Structures are given as structure tokens and as C-alpha cells.
């Protein structure tokens, strides 16, 4: 049966296909059903493609490298070199620790089957159960790396983005969620963790039980009580503890959108994760005014934008294909 999946992908890869077949293929490929088998077939295709060696670098690849270099230079520099260096070392050591818990403790088993990545595309949510029974709900564009089986002294996973964890109780094996800038250790508990690379601040909110949060290159630690939220600002390296409205923290899990005194720019960052549209606007169109909105599950982008345009009073919008254009009124 696996072979049906490989064969479909092989046929599509090798030949020119009609637009209608291409669309059928896309619908099938991105469909929920048998997503594991489809992923495996795609992975086979990927694994069968050779890496390149420096000897065979083509002119086009050089060209692409130059363009990528240019794009990197144009990006706003978030950290200076010295900090980057420091951060790299800490990230590398963190990763080595993660890797050793994930792979090497697993013994002689091939590393190839060990690590699983779960990604949630734009405009979707993923529910999954980890090998230890921990239930995870992942928000749009989040990535979770976890081992096929937990071995060793702890249960470690790596999160980029936002997710809610209902940790299966196991006092002997602490459950650790790592991200670039902090990590959370739990025994049996429920918490929400938000660590999108693009956001200036990361946060974790404890819903029940207790967790330990480590940050500042794992040098500082503190214990959260239920309903407390830990926020860490990546730029200023400042941490705060607050008691937010839990209903608001978990709103995304019910599909709701909640913004509390949030700028339009921040709102758009969230909308871009939630809806499959990219936003086009000039930065000076968006003022720094802060807004509070609450939208129900399944509100369309049009409804959301209608209300935002109405309330802000200084912008208008237009949706065309997969783009949402925002311009001054």
C-alpha cells in the first residue's frame, strides 16, 4: 500500500501533468487522510535525491547564494555579533544536550527513524499524542520535534511556535519542552507555550500542576504556579511573571482570536498565521494605536478585516487571490 503513495509521487515527479491532474494531486497530497504515508513517500523522494558537492557547484547555485546573501543583509539585524556568538554557543550546547537525550541514549537504533517533526500549516491546528501519552495541541505554523520513543532520563521535545501540552504523569521522567531561548520542565501538568521565532517575546502559561522554567542560557530558573504566565523578551532579556486571563491565553485552542491592546502590526502577524493570505502594506500605514478585539471561531478574514477597518477608521483593505492589501483611507 505504501507503494501506491510512492508510485503516485513518482508519476507526478517524472511527468508533465495536466492542470486538472495537478490540482487533484495537490488536493490529495495536502489531504489529512494517510498523511503519514504521504509524508513517508515524500521523504523517500527527498532521500533519493543526492546532495551536492563543492566540485559541482553550478553558476545558478552561485547566483542563488548571492541573492540569499543580499536578502540576509537586508533583514533587520536583531542581535549584534557578540551576542550572536554567545547565543550560538548556548544554542549549540542546548542542542547537543537535546540530541544526546534524543538519539544517543536510544542505543544502537538507527538515528534515521528517531526524530519526528510535526508541522502545522497556516490556518490549521494539529492534535497529537506523543509516545508517552502526552497530548499536544499545536497552533498554526508551529513545529514540534520529538523522538519516536522516549528513552533516557527525560522526555525532551523541541518547539518552534505555539502549543498546549497536557503532560502524561510520570514522576521519574520529567517532560521538557525546549525552545531557542528557554525551556520548561514538567512532571504531570498542563501548560501553554509560545515561542514563534518572529515574535519579540516568548511566553509560557501554566494551567495546572507546576513547571520549572529555565532561561538566560539555562542559568536562571523559576517555578510557576497555576494561572501564572512567564514572559521572556528576547531582545531585552527581561523576564516578567503575570496572571493573565486564562480564557484569553487558551482562546486559540478553540479557534478564537483575541487581541488585547495590540498594535495593528502585531495583529497582522497573528492573522498571517491563522489565514492563508499574505498581507501587503506600507509600514507607515499602520499607526501605533492599540486595539482590543475578540473574534469567534471560524470568523472569515473578510469579517475580521471589516471590523478592524471600521474600528481603526484610518485604513481600508482589499482581498485579491491570496493577498490582503491594506492602504490608508
Amino acid at each position, binding site marked *: 500500500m505504501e507503494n501506491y503513495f510512492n508510485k503516485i509521487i513518482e508519476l507526478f515527479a517524472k511527468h508533465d501533468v495536466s492542470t486538472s491532474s495537478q490540482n487533484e494531486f495537490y488536493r490529495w497530497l495536502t489531504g489529512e487522510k494517510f498523511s503519514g504515508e504521504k509524508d513517508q513517500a515524500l521523504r523517500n523522494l527527498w532521500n533519493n535525491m543526492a546532495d551536492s558537492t563543492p566540485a559541482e557547484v553550478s553558476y545558478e547555485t552561485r547566483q*542563488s547564494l548571492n541573492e540569499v546573501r543580499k536578502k540576509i543583509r537586508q533583514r533587520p539585524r536583531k542581535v549584534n555579533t557578540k551576542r550572536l556568538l554567545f547565543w550560538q554557543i548556548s544554542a549549540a550546547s542546548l542542542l547537543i544536550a537535546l540530541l544526546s537525550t534524543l538519539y544517543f541514549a536510544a542505543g544502537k537504533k538507527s538515528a534515521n527513524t528517531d526524530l519526528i517533526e510535526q508541522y502545522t500549516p497556516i490556518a490549521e491546528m494539529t492534535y497529537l499524542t506523543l509516545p508517552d501519552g502526552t497530548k499536544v495541541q499545536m497552533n498554526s505554523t508551529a513545529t514540534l520535534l520529538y523522538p519516536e520513543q522516549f528513552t533516557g532520563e527525560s522526555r525532551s521535545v523541541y518547539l518552534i511556535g505555539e502549543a498546549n501540552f497536557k503532560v502524561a504523569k510520570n514522576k521519574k521522567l520529567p517532560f521538557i519542552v525546549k525552545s531557542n531561548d528557554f525551556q520548561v520542565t514538567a512532571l504531570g501538568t498542563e501548560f501553554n507555550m509560545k515561542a514563534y521565532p518572529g515574535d519579540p517575546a516568548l511566553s509560557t502559561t501554566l494551567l495546572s500542576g507546576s513547571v520549572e522554567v529555565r532561561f538566560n542560557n539555562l542559568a536562571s530558573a523559576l517555578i510557576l504556579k497555576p494561572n501564572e504566565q512567564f514572559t521572556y523578551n528576547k531582545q531585552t532579556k527581561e523576564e516578567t511573571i503575570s496572571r493573565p486571563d486564562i480564557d484569553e491565553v487558551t482562546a486559540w485552542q478553540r479557534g478564537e482570536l483575541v487581541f488585547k491592546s495590540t498594535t495593528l502590526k502585531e495583529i497582522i502577524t497573528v492573522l498571517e498565521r491563522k489565514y492563508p493570505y499574505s498581507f501587503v502594506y506600507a509600514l507607515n500605514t499602520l499607526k501605533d494605536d492599540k486595539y482590543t478585539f475578540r473574534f469567534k471561531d471560524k470568523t472569515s478574514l473578510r469579517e475580521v478585516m471589516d471590523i478592524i477597518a471600521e474600528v481603526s477608521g484610518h485604513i481600508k483593505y482589499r482581498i485579491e487571490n491570496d493577498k490582503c492589501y491594506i492602504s490608508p483611507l
Partner: protein
Amino acid sequence: MNTEAYRTEFEEIFIQYFPKVKAFAAILLKSEQEAEDVAQDIFVKLWEQPDLWEGYLVRNYLYTMVKNHVFNRIKRKNIEFKYINSQMNLHSLDEIAEFKDPLNEIYHEELQLLLKLSLEQMPDKRRQVFEMSRFQDLSNHEIAEKLNLSVRTVEQHIYLALKELKKLFLIAIFLMKF
């Protein structure tokens, strides 16, 4: 690691993997330009994630990234997905698979897509005859009349089409069982 070493390491990874990432995206998106955009975006992001440059991890991470980017693009295309031609029913699939396999029902969607993609690789006339015969239920005589062919030619086309499809499906089924 100083800035220079950082840059050198990034370039090594770029040279090793960029062509592969781009080729993979191009296979799925069927567009060189889109594939180039996807691959460049991924490597711009990778620059900021040096903790993921580790050998095994980067390969795995790049696969995930390219898959996600491609899936996002596919979703953004806002394709109005229509269900596969309903005239392609299980009956015609059973004929090709030669025996009734309970798995064929489970993998109905896969078999249909496989059939559609395989049909497209056939010569036009052969495909047309086969579709008229099996999906529109026309008799060989009716097809011959409509396409201005001899009945014998129509039979020949159907025979060849079935032979080709059976071969393909047998390979799929054979490999699946062992």
C-alpha cells in the same frame, strides 16, 4: 565561532543542500521560479537558526521546511479542489487490479489518482478511447463511429491501455505485498 567561520559554514551547507531543496520544490510545484523563491526563503531562515546546522538535523529540518513551504504555497493557490471524476468508479479499478482486494477500497482515492496520472501518460487517442469505453460506457461500435476509427482499432487501443495499466498496478500491488 567568529563571523567569518559562521559565514563559511553557512556557505558549505548552502552548496551542499540548496540544489536539492530547489529541485525537490520544483518537482512538486512544477515551476522553477517558485522553487527558487521557496529555496531562497528557506536558506534566509536557516541563516538565523545556526542551532539547526548540525549534519543530520539540517537534512531533516530542510526536508520539513521545504515540505511546509510547498504545502503552504499549494494552499495559497486557493485551488478549488474538485472531486475526481466520479465516473471513474471502483468497477473500472477492479478490472485493472484483476482481483478484488479489500485494500483497494481503503486506498480508493490513491488508486483513482494513480489511474488518472497513468492515463495521462498514454497517447491521446488511446486514452480517449479508453475513457469513452470505461467511463462513459460507450460500446466499441459507438466509439468507432464517433472517432471515425475501425472497431478493430478501438479494441486494440483498449487492449493496450488495459495492458499498460495492469502492468503498472501489478507492480504497485506486487511490491506492496512483499
